[in-house]
Each structure stands twice: as structure tokens, then as C-alpha cells.
């Protein structure tokens, strides 16, 4: 039996290949894409500027969501399409706790950490709601989460009586911006912490084995003592936690909220990140790092398109084309064909 010490997962090749393609494209079109400069922002703190930094900044929101989405996909074989709406709820909760009854308070009515923890609890409850529908009522994940997808933004608006609270406290902007003295965007730091946490969880618990086993064969998992319903439920709760973190970043960026626009369509990007990571959207085996990398690749693509001055309204169409290309290339059908082609080419070389 061969025992490989270094186990490089071939799955990582897919997002890496996509990343390399994007990098090459930008190198050819305009190498200044990769320029990173140190400047100062409006409050006089040193910050890094450049397209790459933008990618790290905004890709981090996606990466955090991709963590939860990967687990949900693996265990339930479906996706949660309500994360954008759920972010509206968690963001609204954070603002409500910070502002209290006044929509434009001079000072914060509660510590930020308290607001964040409340948002965590609320988001996990909504995650649990989705989880119960999927795991115990056996509703297809996309259909089950359609409920919250439809209602979420209204619930968010209702929490603040449809008003738009604005926070003037500067420390609240740190989470979606920069902490004074650190030129790296905070969302990237938060994402790094999230990735480290989930890697530790996967290493020190059997979460990975359970979710994959349940996703592949629920009946067999049950006979091995696993509770498939609870595992599915748990993944939705974990995604709820990811939503709360993303919600904090989102409202911190603006210091306010726009219920109908905040994190719009982000669920699709999060799902695409999972797919781009080479994970089957039908559940089962997954590679967490590939998903996270996939998230940054999606953002890389978005930023590239922005830089090409594609108008915001046309952006999704361009993105769709590229995504179709990437996803189709990574399907087993095409990969098999490519493998065959590769073998043929090599065979010819040998003959020659």
C-alpha cells in the first residue's frame, strides 16, 4: 500500500487553473492591474491600494460564505439560496442593537461585540429554520430556502421599522475597512481567521467525515450510528454563523444598510465558488480550500470585468459566460475527454 506523505488534492487544480488564466489575461491586457501602492485613506491611516487588494477585500465576504455553503452542499446535496436575504437580516439586527431606538445616535447604544453576538444568534436561528425544513421535513434545499430568500429582506426592513439607521462611530467602520495602523483590509483578516477556524474544526472533529458520508449515502450513515438529519441541520446552522460574519462586514462598509440591495445575488457567487472549487453540487466529497480559493477567483473575475469598464448592469452576463466556461471545463464528461486527448498526444510524442 502506497502511503503518500504529501497529499496534493487534484481538485485544487481547477480553481488554480482558472486563477492562472485570469492572471495571464490581465498580464497581457494591462500589467498595471497588479500594481499595489501604499497610500492613506480619508482618516489618515496607511492602506494598500490596487486591484489585487480589492479582490482580497471583497473576495473575503464570498470566501466566508463559501465555507458554510460547502458544508451545506456536501451534507444536503443542495444549496442555500437565502444567504443574501439572511445577510440583510443580520445586518439589520446589528444596526438595531447598536442604534437602539434612535436611528442616528451620537454614540453606540451597545458594544459592537454584543451586537455581533446577537446577530450570530439570530442568523443561526434562521439557519436552523432552513435546516429543520431540509433535514426533518425533507424539503429540497433550494425550495426550502426559497422561503427565506423571499421573506428575508422584508424581515430585515421590519426589524428597523423600514428606517435606515446610520452609525457615525468610526470604530464601526474597521470591520469592513481598515484597522488603524494595519494596511491590510480587515475583511481579509476576518476571512483568514474563519478559514483557520474551519480548518481546525475539520481537523479536530469528525465534521468532514460525517457531512461527506451523509451526503453520499444517508441510509448507510444512519446504520453506522450517524444521525443524518442532525448533521444536515448542523451545516445550515454553521452557514448561519458565516452569514452573521458577512453581515457585519457588509454593514460596516457603509455604516448603514439598504435592505433591497445589500449582498444582492451573493448566494449565486457563493454557490459558484463551491462549484468552481470542483466540488459536486450534488453533495458528497468536498475540498474546503478549493471552495475558498474558488471564492477569490470569482472576485478576481468580477474585478477584472470592472476594470475592463464593463457596465455594472452588463456585468452578470459577462460573468455568466466565463463561469459557464469554467464549470463546463471541470465537469467529469469534459475532463474525461481532455484526459483522452492528453493521452493521445503523449502517445504520439512517444511514437515520434
Amino acid at each position: 500500500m502506497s502511503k503518500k506523505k504529501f497529499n496534493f488534492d487534484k481538485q485544487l487544480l481547477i480553481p488554480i487553473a482558472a486563477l492562472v488564466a485570469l492572471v495571464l489575461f490581465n498580464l497581457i491586457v494591462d500589467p498595471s492591474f497588479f500594481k499595489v501602492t501604499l497610500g492613506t485613506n480619508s482618516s489618515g491611516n496607511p492602506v494598500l491600494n490596487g486591484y489585487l487588494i480589492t479582490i482580497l477585500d471583497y473576495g473575503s465576504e464570498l470566501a466566508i460564505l463559501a465555507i458554510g455553503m460547502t458544508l451545506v452542499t456536501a451534507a444536503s446535496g443542495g444549496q442555500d439560496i437565502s444567504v443574501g436575504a439572511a445577510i440583510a437580516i443580520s445586518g439589520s439586527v446589528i444596526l438595531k442593537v447598536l442604534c437602539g431606538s434612535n436611528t442616528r445616535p451620537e454614540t453606540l447604544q451597545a458594544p459592537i461585540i454584543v451586537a455581533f453576538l446577537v446577530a450570530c444568534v439570530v442568523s443561526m436561528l434562521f439557519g436552523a429554520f432552513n435546516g429543520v425544513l431540509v433535514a426533518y421535513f425533507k424539503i429540497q434545499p433550494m425550495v426550502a430556502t426559497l422561503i427565506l430568500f423571499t421573506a428575508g429582506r422584508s424581515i430585515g426592513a421590519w426589524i428597523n421599522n423600514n428606517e435606515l439607521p446610520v452609525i457615525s462611530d468610526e470604530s464601526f467602520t474597521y470591520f469592513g475597512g481598515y484597522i488603524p495602523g494595519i494596511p491590510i483590509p480587515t475583511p481579509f483578516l476576518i476571512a483568514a481567521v474563519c478559514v483557520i477556524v474551519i480548518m481546525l474544526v475539520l481537523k479536530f472533529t469528525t465534521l468532514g467525515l460525517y457531512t461527506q458520508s451523509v451526503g453520499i449515502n444517508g441510509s448507510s450513515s444512519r446504520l453506522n450510528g450517524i444521525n443524518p438529519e442532525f448533521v444536515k441541520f448542523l451545516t445550515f446552522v454553521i452557514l448561519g454563523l458565516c452569514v452573521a460574519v458577512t453581515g457585519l462586514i457588509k454593514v460596516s462598509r457603509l455604516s448603514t444598510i439598504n435592505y433591497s440591495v445589500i449582498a444582492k445575488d451573493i448566494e449565486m457567487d457563493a454557490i459558484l465558488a463551491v462549484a468552481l472549487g470542483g466540488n459536486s453540487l450534488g453533495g458528497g466529497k468536498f475540498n474546503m480550500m478549493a471552495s475558498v480559493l474558488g471564492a477569490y477567483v470569482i472576485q478576481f473575475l468580477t474585478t477584472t470585468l470592472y476594470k475592463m469598464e464593463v457596465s455594472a448592469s452588463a456585468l452578470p452576463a459577462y460573468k455568466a459566460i466565463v463561469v459557464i466556461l469554467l464549470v463546463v471545463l471541470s465537469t467529469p464528461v469534459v475532463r474525461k475527454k481532455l484526459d483522452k486527448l492528453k493521452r493521445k498526444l503523449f502517445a504520439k510524442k512517444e511514437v515520434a
Partner: protein
Amino acid sequence: MKEKAVLELHGIVKSFPGVRALQSVDFTLREGEIHALMGENGAGKSTLIKVITGVYEKDGGEILLKGIDGPASIHSPQDAQNSGISTVYQEITLCPNLSVAENMFIGRTKGLATNWRKMNQDADKILKSLDIPAKATQQLGTCSLAVQQMVAIARAVDMECKVLILDEPTSSLDDSEVKKLFGLMRDLKAKGVGIIFVTHFLDQVYEVCDRITVLRDGKLVGEYEIKDLPRVQLVSKMLGKELDDLSDIKGEPKEEEENANEVPVLEAHQLQSNAGIKPFDFYIKKGEVNGFTGLLGSGRSECVRAIFGADHVIGGSVKKNGKDVKIRKPLDAMKNGIAYLPEDRKIDGIVGDLSVRENIILAAQVLRGFFRPFSKAKTYEIADEYIKLLNIKTASADTPIKSLSGGNQQKVILARWLLMHPEYLILDEPTRGIDVGTKVEIQKLVLKLAGEGMSVTFISSETDEMLRTCSRLVVMRDRKVVGELKGDELSQSNIMKTIAGHEEEKGGESVE
């Protein structure tokens, strides 16, 4: 092509990563013959079938078909079907939520419009002519497994095939159904259809087949006329060794000393589950091997599933080593040292995409708990140990279990439960669809484990296998325990009598 041949294979080669599944195999099927394809697990039977039916592309060699000049090109199951090759697989591959008629004609209607009435009438005609107890409009899922199998054959037969491949069609049928199937096969034979019959049941081979081709380790051993090859020789050809191993087990004495005061390892009283079995009593002692026997659907599996908590228990009590225990779900049973190898390996056993290694550690890992995962190195250590111990044929510990052959998958599941070091091991059809060699290995293992003090319940459709391994048999009929046989009472005829229930039931008297 040879005279009267309908299908000829020359030098077929097929490799998978790490395995050379077929190494230059020849095979000839003649008109109007039933030809058995025999071999151990991993001998290459399934691969050969899949090459013929276009599921796999062959790496080399050629396929000749009657009526076609030159090598036939079969690249997909559709190609095979159009060339007159039909297949019925071991696992039923129909759609249970469609009607019987729809299943028979699916993918074969021309154009978009369907004449439903005509389709149903045609289906009914075929069903009637083949004596299959199903209605055309009935939903397939409501038929018994055996009837579903026969519908699959009816579908294949109706497609005007020249070559019919039956891949283990009888493994889920009972005797009378097998008889019916054989009648059907003989009819088709008379019509000139060439039938390839893959099975593990030697009796059936000698009952219907004309010729046997034996494969071993991906190579052709030979083609024989049935009358030239006695059973013993067939088995030794398949195994590639003499039959000492088999006789070894048969000679095993069954030491069964009655120890009236001994507390049973497990004792169930009036246990009942929602799977439709009548309440039953059951016990097993330390180091004992016993079994449930009965016809297909008599409730054998449901009994052990109730003990393991796999079905919802609705009544009765269970004592473990004399102490009351509550077993509501599989995890409860596992915590009480009970392991259960389920009947349906594919649905309840393997976790297909996971590696052999992860499949082996799964149950033990669950028992250890969520926050105490085995280290990766440890899992490799365990996997390598059990791969060696049970002689599992796999490219590596990281190979997905679904790419292993059936027998080796079963060994992996067995390894999973042995790793748990259970006090009481339930094996439900552990040898189903498995070659003779692995069967013997498993039987031997059971006896060895019992010798070491493990209690084992062994369920098998083959009674001689049960007689060889069990010292006590619980006999079931119509989801009810109808008798118990032990010691000298254990014989084929006694089992049959008890199952058939010739005499009126008067308590345990019917056993005589």
C-alpha cells in the same frame, strides 16, 4: 466466425488504474445455448459484460457479431441494444415510480407521441405470455423484488435480442421464481437466443447451462461443455486451487454444550418493529453462531434490524448480558457492542465516494465521538492492517470503495464492524453475490470469531451455508418465528419441513 456463433470476442483487454481487469480474453456464444460465465470476484466477469454491452470501452481486442462483417463497434449501451444485445443486471436498474408498462417501453417509443393504450395492451400481452404476476399499469415499485427482476427480463426479451445477458438474475429470487425464470430461459434458447448467464449458484449452472467459460484474475481459464466438467473441478478451476479449503469447513465439529445457567449475551423478548414482523423472542450466547432462516420475505432481515435498532422498534424488551437496555437507534446498539452488516450492501453498506480507508474507520470513528477523530496516520495504519487481514484487493487505501468488486466491498464493510470489536456481530447475507472463495473465507472467519468468544448471527439464503456455520437456527415463515432447530435436528429436510409447516402448528412440536 465459428459456425453458429452469435457473438465472438477475441483478445479483449481492459485496464483500470492499478488493475488489469481483462488480459486478452476470448469468448464465444453460440445460437440457442445457455452459457455460464463463472469466476471469483475480481475475475473480470462484470468487466467483460460491461465491455460487451458498451458500458466500458475496451482497450484492445475485437468483438464479432453474427450478421455483421468485420469487428462490431460498440461504444455505448445504445449501440449494444441496436446490435441485439440485451442485458439484465444484478441490481434492478428500472424506475420504481413508473408503471410496469412504462418501464418495459421506456426509451423505445418512436417519436414524441405515445399510444398509452396500445403500450399497456402490448405490455399485458408480454407479461401474460411470460407468466409474470404484474399488471401493465401497476407502479413498478409496488411489485416484489422478484417480479421487478422478471419485468426487467421481459423488457430485455421483448427487444428482439440475439444475445441476452443475465447478470446474477437469481440472487434475489426464491426457488419457485427461479424455476419460472429457467422455463423462460429455455423458451428463449429454443428460439435461438444465445444467453450469457452469470451466477454464483452452482446448482443453477448445472440445471440450465450447456457450456461454461471460467475466468480467473482477468484471464481466460477455459471453455467447457457442462458434461465434461464435474462440479468439484469447476470450483477448483475458479479458485485455481484444490478443494481442501472447502472440505476443511465442512468437517468442522459443532460443539454445542448446553449451559442452562449461562446468561445470554443478548436476549430479546416479544420484540416488534414497524417493519411488519410479529413480536418474536430471541437469544444468543457467548461464542455462539446462530441464524435466521426462511424464505425470501419471511422477515429474517427485519428481525435483526429490530435488534440493531435500524427499524423503528415499537414493542418488547432487550436484555444485554442480563441487564435491560434500550435500543432505539443504531448508535445505541453500537454502544452496546452490537454490529450489523446489512443485507443491501449498496444502499445500506458502502459510502461509495469515500475511500476504503474512510469506509473502514467509519463506525469505529462514530463510536469514538465527534470530538475525537482518529489521526490521519492512525487511519492509514488501521486500513492497512485490515486490508491485509481480510485480504482485500484494492489499489490503495485511498481508492474509492465503489471502484472495488462486490466481494471486496463486502470485506471492507466487514472490516468496518470488526474494527469496532463487537461482542455480538450480525451478518445479514454477507455472502450474497460473492464468489466461492470469498464465501469460504467469510464462513471461516465467522467460526474463528466465534471461537474467540464473539457471538454471531448469520443469515444466508443458502441453507447449506447456514448448516455449515450455525449451531442453532431460528426458522421463520410469513414474518413470524415458527420454530427453532439445533444439534441433530439441523438438516436440509428439517429446515424445509419447518418452513413449509406441513403439520398444524402446535407450539414447538412441528419441529420434529
